[in-house]
């Protein structure tokens, strides 16, 4: 089912509660009554078409009208990606950390050392994720903005061309790191190997959160790969072609 601007936002949440995290990422608070998506977006100064594309692409994995999403400015896409980074680092990860803390506290004192390893393992994962995010925010996004500026100004300068030669979206795509490997391992350790804690529901709660984080990270990566990368590549190509012309 395609989500459109005339639908009530409340209905959309009933349709798929996972979209709650998306609306909060756009800064929308609950309590919007029976307002339509269009109306809520107006209240919050949100680009309604962009908002709809993000909602639809999360709601239905097969939905991905790349051409349409690529019509939005890099600024809008990057702002959204930044907000989701913030959500991972400042909301989701601390939530999981708290659950893991409770999990390791639930083991008897004399065996606790073993389970604290799980906390440590997760801290390692958090550092990797945060490095990955830092690199995007401090290296990739500024680069992407400079490409867009040059493209929009129709001004392929020496500087921008050399910066494309120095680092381009091809490099970004190759910088695939295995952040997701640790998440995969942690899930398997909890599912297959960890001795049951006194309260088995704790283990389940952690697993639910890990699966959710993974899904969200995959959706996030899809927007990077399918929207941001092709858009910037297109502009890089234009700049290089017009530099010598």
């Amino acid at each position, binding site marked *: 089912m395609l989500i459109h601007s005339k639908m009530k936002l409340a209905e959309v949440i009933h349709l798929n509660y996972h979209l709650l995290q998306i609306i909060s990422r756009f800064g929308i608070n609950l309590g919007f009554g029976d307002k339509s998506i269009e109306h809520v977006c107006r209240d919050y100064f949100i680009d309604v078409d962009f908002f709809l594309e993000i909602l639809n692409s999360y709601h239905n994995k097969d939905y991905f009208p790349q051409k349409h999403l690529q019509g939005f400015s890099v600024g809008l896409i990057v702002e959204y990606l930044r907000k989701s980074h913030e959500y991972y680092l400042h909301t989701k990860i601390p939530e999981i950390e708290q659950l893991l803390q409770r999990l390791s506290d639930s083991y008897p004192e*004399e*065996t606790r*050392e*073993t389970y*604290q*390893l*799980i906390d*440590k*393992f997760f801290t*390692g994962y958090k550092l990797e994720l945060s490095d990955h995010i830092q690199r995007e925010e401090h290296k990739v996004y500024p680069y992407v903005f400079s490409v867009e500026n040059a493209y929009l100004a129709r001004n392929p300068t020496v500087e921008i061309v050399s910066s494309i030669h120095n680092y381009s979206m091809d490099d970004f795509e190759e910088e695939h790191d*295995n952040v997701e*490997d*640790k998440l*995969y*391992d*942690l899930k*398997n*350790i909890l599912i*297959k*190997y*960890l*001795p*049951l804690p*006194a309260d*088995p529901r704790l283990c389940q709660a952690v697993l639910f959160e890990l699966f959710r984080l993974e899904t969200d990270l995959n959706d996030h990566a899809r927007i990077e790969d399918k929207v941001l990368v092709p858009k910037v590549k297109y502009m890089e190509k234009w700049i290089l072609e017009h530099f010598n012309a």
Partner: protein
Amino acid sequence: MESIHVIIADLSQLTRTGVSAILRQFGYPTSCREIMHPDRLTDYVFKNHNTLLIISNSFISKCSSDQLRNLTARTRYLFKILIRDSGTLLLPIHTFNEIIEPEDNDKIIFRKLEKQLQGLLKPFTAGIVQEEISDREKEVLRLVAMGFTNKEIAEKLFISAHTVITHRKNITSKLGIKTIAGLTVYAVIHKLISPDIVN
């Protein structure tokens, strides 16, 4: 068909004899051993695969903290039945696959034992591929978890680096764990290395 090792750990001769008599009625391929001292646990229980441990609460009360830790570890090939004979439980109830209560009659005891024996036989009758890692792989895993490189591991074990890599691939595919940090956690949980080494 591989046989099941049954260990009956109880302080009372009467109980041990009674349990082994019931077990004989099943006709499953079992080898039965009775132990009356916790030190014997290490000799029999944690070395064999495919073991059914029938242990009483009063026996557990005589165990050291190390032995208790071994008992709580969860493995696929050790099924544990508690005979609740006295006092308060010293281990979390989830440690056990089944509990035999003082008031259970012969039919109930029979059914409880049978269920566990069938559970142990299942992986073999269903022809499931065993994913347990071999002793050699365990040794490689232990060294990986301790932070040695492939080259160092090859030198220590007198094998080629290529063989180390093959072992590592097999370990990863059997366990479903890809990262060194993850393998380390596994190694600690399974007591291949001590948590101190990691710290």
